[in-house]
């Protein structure tokens, strides 16, 4: 459950460009019918006709949007009162029927100080702009709209709140990047190419349920991320035309009973990616998101394709599942020599890694208590082992993942220091390590 406070926190840190896009989307999707109808004809997103500003000026702290005689200004400036006064001054002599000022700040009681007198902000706008309808949309109103299930996808795409059930493209990408078991060694340009192929083969059709699979599952996951990014870039200067949402992984641990189907919007085309489908036990339950305008794509490794299909069909009804396989990803043929070289490479890596990991363990023992933020000791270890920081980080990860060490606060501690002590003794005896080099 996302709390108001979480939305406020995110709103506080949103950049002006994303804020403006979010406001535009809210207006376009009918969040404020008293101001403009949904699907109202709005000027091109992000372009100020009067000043001929383009998206290139996105770093500015404020932006504005015009629709006919409706003037919409948005700002992330901390002193919203000052900004409001500025835009009022700017628009003073124009013909405006409706004036809207959007801010990510807390406007409180909407009182602003003018000539040391506190007056109502709406009243101030009306007086100065001579228009009947003036609206100040602040943090609280935005929170209200963003808590409305109809606009969950806007919230997801702009605020990326971790408690939301689905990730946006950005959130999904972060998971791939942060998880060492999901690292992909395929060149990014290659992935972009696969994404293009996937895009060509993937037509949005809510009537279909798709099973997307490949043997090289990791590359497939990165291909989906690249596809999402391409789509966002296309949408950048437009309203969101299609929502891409990704389940949190691994979802087999989550009880879907408490998840609302309203997470997926009924009116906007939505593609739901259920990735890691081969690891999800209650897979058929995800069919609840199979709504009028949603298309479900189950993603898995080809080896588990049948198993996944069976699990989806487990719900008792009948369903047609379209198979989607991007052959380009698995197509690359490898020569025997290349395979042999690869094998040798792995053996060397494993041996080197084992040796260096043992040395590292001995050094962690020697420098215990080993504070992970102690740059002096880390530098010393790097120089003794002749490795860089990334390698050192990966050695840490290996120790942790293999239950050889654990972390408390900043301290990395060994699970079996007695063995590490023996290792250190051996390294000193066979002169692999030299005391003079170890002492700081």
């Amino acid at each position: 459950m996302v709390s108001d406070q979480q939305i406020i926190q995110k709103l506080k840190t949103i950049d002006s460009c994303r804020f403006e896009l979010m406001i535009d989307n809210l207006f376009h999707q009918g969040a404020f019918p008293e101001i403009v109808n949904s699907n109202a004809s709005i000027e091109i997103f992000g372009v100020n006709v009067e000043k001929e500003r383009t998206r290139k000026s996105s770093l500015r702290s404020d932006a504005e949007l015009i629709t006919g005689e409706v003037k919409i200004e948005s700002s992330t400036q901390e002193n919203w009162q000052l900004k409001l006064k500025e835009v009022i001054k700017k628009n003073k002599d124009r013909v405006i029927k409706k004036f809207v000022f959007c801010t990510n700040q807390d406007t409180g009681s909407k009182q602003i100080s003018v000539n040391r007198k506190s007056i109502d902000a709406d009243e101030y706008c009306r007086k100065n702009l001579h228009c009947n309808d003036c609206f100040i949309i602040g943090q609280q109103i935005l929170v209200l709209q963003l808590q409305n299930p109809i606009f969950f996808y806007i919230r997801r795409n702009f605020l990326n709140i971790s408690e939301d059930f689905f990730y946006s493209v950005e959130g999904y990408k972060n998971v791939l990047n942060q998880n060492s078991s999901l690292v992909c060694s395929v060149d990014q340009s290659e992935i972009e190419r696969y994404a293009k192929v996937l895009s060509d083969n993937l037509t949005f059709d809510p009537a279909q349920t798709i099973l997307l699979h490949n043997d090289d599952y990791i590359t497939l996951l990165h291909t989906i991320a690249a596809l999402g990014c391409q789509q966002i870039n296309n949408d950048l200067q437009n309203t969101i035309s299609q929502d891409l949402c990704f389940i949190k992984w691994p979802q087999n641990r989550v009880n879907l009973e408490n998840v609302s189907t309203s997470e997926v919007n009924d009116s906007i085309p939505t593609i739901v990616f259920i990735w890691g489908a081969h690891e999800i036990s209650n897979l058929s339950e995800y069919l609840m998101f199979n709504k009028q305008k949603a298309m479900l794509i189950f993603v898995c490794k080809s080896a588990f394709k049948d198993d996944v299909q069976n699990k989806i069909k487990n719900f008792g009804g009948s369903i047609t599942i379209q198979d989607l396989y991007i052959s380009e990803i698995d197509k690359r043929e490898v020569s025997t020599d290349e395979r042999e070289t690869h094998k040798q490479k792995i053996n060397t890596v494993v041996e080197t890694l084992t040796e260096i990991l043992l040395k590292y363990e001995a050094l962690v023992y020697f420098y215990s208590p080993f504070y992970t933020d102690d740059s002096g000791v880390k530098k010393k270890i790097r120089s003794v082992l002749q490795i860089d920081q990334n390698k050192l980080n990966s050695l840490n990860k290996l120790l942790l993942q293999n239950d050889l060490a654990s972390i408390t606060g900043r301290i990395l501690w060994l699970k079996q220091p007695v063995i590490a002590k023996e290792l250190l003794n051996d390294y000193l005896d066979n002169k692999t390590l030299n005391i003079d080099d170890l002492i700081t």
Partner: protein
Amino acid sequence: MKKNKAQLRKLMELNNQKADEYLAKFACEIIADIKKSKDNDSILENLDLLKEFIYKVPNEMIEIMRYIIEKKPTSPVIHKSKFGEFDGKSHKDLILIGIELLDHIRYIVHDEVLELIRQLSQWEDSEVKNKALEVIKKFAKYDFNILTKSKIGYGAQREILNFIKQWSSNKQKQNFDFIITATKELLNSSIEGNTWKDEKTLVYHSGVVGPTDFLKRIRRETIELLFELYPTIKDSKKRLQIISTLEEATRRPSNVLYGDDVTQMILDDIDQLIENYRSIVFNDSQKMREEPAIVAEIEKGLYWLARNEKFKTQKVINLRKDILKDSFYSLFRLLVGDPVTYKEEEGWDTADKKRAEAIAEKVLEISEKNLRGWITKLNIIAEQKEITEEWHFQEFKRFLRKIAKEKSALADNILANAFKKNRSLKAFTANFLDGFRDSTEFDLWDKYVTEIIKRKEALLVSAICFSLNLAGEVDLKKEIRNRDIELLNDIVKKQNTFAFLRTNKDGHFLLHYALINTLTRNYVRSPKKIEGLIVEEMARHSQYISMYFQNLQMSTWKKWMDVSKWSEKGAEFLKQQMIELPSLDWHAQGLLLNLGKENFTIIIEVFLGRIKKDNESKKRRRCLLREDRYEAVPYHFNPDLREHIASHPCYKKVVCEWFTEATVDWSVYNWDIGQFLQRVGGPSLSEILMSLVEKGDKDSLMKVTRIMGPFWDGNFDLCIEIARRTENEKILGQLESVMYATGVVSGEYGISEAYERKAKDLEQYTRDKDPRARKFVEKMIKSFKEGAERERQRADEEIQLRKIEFEG
């Protein structure tokens, strides 16, 4: 020479040949560096490094210690810092650290350590000497860990005994303290020690030595050693120390679970002791030859043995019987000693009655005829004051007073002899003077006062004062003559016949103690005059000011005197003295309460005076090491005084006036006011400070946060009230630091939980009407939550560190 201590320690723990070679090489570098050092601080730094791996380089440590002992002491270097100047390490500091290090290697290079420690145990500096003796104590001690976890067994005890036994008699005499310290441990029958069960459980072990033949031989030889040493020692005090040490052999283990074999071992040792005691106490013709105080110590030991069925052997009973048979010793036992061991099988009351009757009988016994013999006996008893603690002489003092009262003429002879021949009984002059006054023999009393004046002995003047301090309900107008008051006047003013007292500027504590006691006791005899004398006495000897206040308060409690009735001048004097006192102790506070019961202003003036004095003196001097400790507001506040101040109708108003001089920056003045308000209580700190908050200006708000300082009572209302009134970052910053005060917390996560509680307590203010307050509260909640998390992490790290250290 900069090396990481933890890494050196780790190398030591490895038990690796290469690591050991490295450490040995490094120790040689340390030796060279120490020998080159020009200041003590760098030597100390090197010793600090050596400490981490000393077990690997014991011989190098011995070499360093020899060098430090022999080297010419270098004066400490003065270090300058922004906080002031402070002294570097002295040669003595090096010696003390050196002893600590020698202690670590005492079992590794025992002979070398024992020899160095022996030398150091003869140093004149008591700190060095005691620390060296501590090492000997630990060496000779039956340690649980050594006995159960090493192969050393009783080897350490054997080693130190051999070390002592190889000395010549002369050398043994020179190293008396070493021997006493070691042998006391060797004769102990208990084992003690502690071990860490896990990183948070310390287990204390106590047990009983195993009475093997090896151990029995050690004990036997130790007893023999002490008895051989005994006749060579001339100093009675030291002989008494030997007897006390030998008594250790008769003591049962502290752990009551011991077997018959241990009892038998102790019984055998007691037999050996009794034989030797007999030859100490009696000569060949069975006449008592040892000093009565020493015999009393032996007899006391026998008394306790005879009360235990297991150790009540015939030899014990016989020796005690023979000692008690001696007529002079029985007189000594009657007049001197612990009332507990005077009692035999009968109860307290019977024993007291019997003793009083026996003493009365002895008084009757004294006559012209046997006076010479009595004079000798009484002087021998008086001589024992040098060896025995003074409280043992209560009955003797009463006895002398009784003689002076009931047989004044004979007492005159006894005392005259003591004065003439300058004998030990002179130290009991006060008891004779008491007796003379009891019998209203003013002539005799005057005679000895004249004698004291003639001899110009300042300490004996205290006897005059004490004898004018009459006990019980007496008519002072009748019992204390005008002449006596004049005498006190001259003593205080050190004039006329007592002008000789001027030669000793510092005076004698006992004399001034007696004087103030007597003055307050006789206050009602002549209030105005004696008030003046008390003031003069206090003014002349400010070094005893605490003692004077203690006596003034005590005399008020005894209703001898009422300071609230003192003249304005006298009260003003006391006020000034109370401001000067380094700390207002319980008695001084009691006196202040009496003084200010009808005059509240004086209490307030004393505290304000103290606060201002503290502020001024600390403003002038800012030194890291302050020796002149001054505590403006007492930590232990007298509850009656606190109640009186807190409930006084003028209190709040008066204290609010103090705020005018409070400062916006940190100051001693603010600190002391905060402390005063917190200690006094009454209207809460918040309530009083609210008057300042209500002013609302920047300075007032800043002052409040300064005064709240560390004495803030945990109530957020006042803090939020301040936050509602300002956005000034400096004030809010100061307020934040005040709110972080947690007071005393407990448990590993104590601080973290305290922060979490604070964050929770602040929740109620998140709906505050004032946006500034809301903003501040939100910031603080966030900060406390983050702080709680940080502290939790720190605590987890601490626990883990202990685990790592424990597990290695």
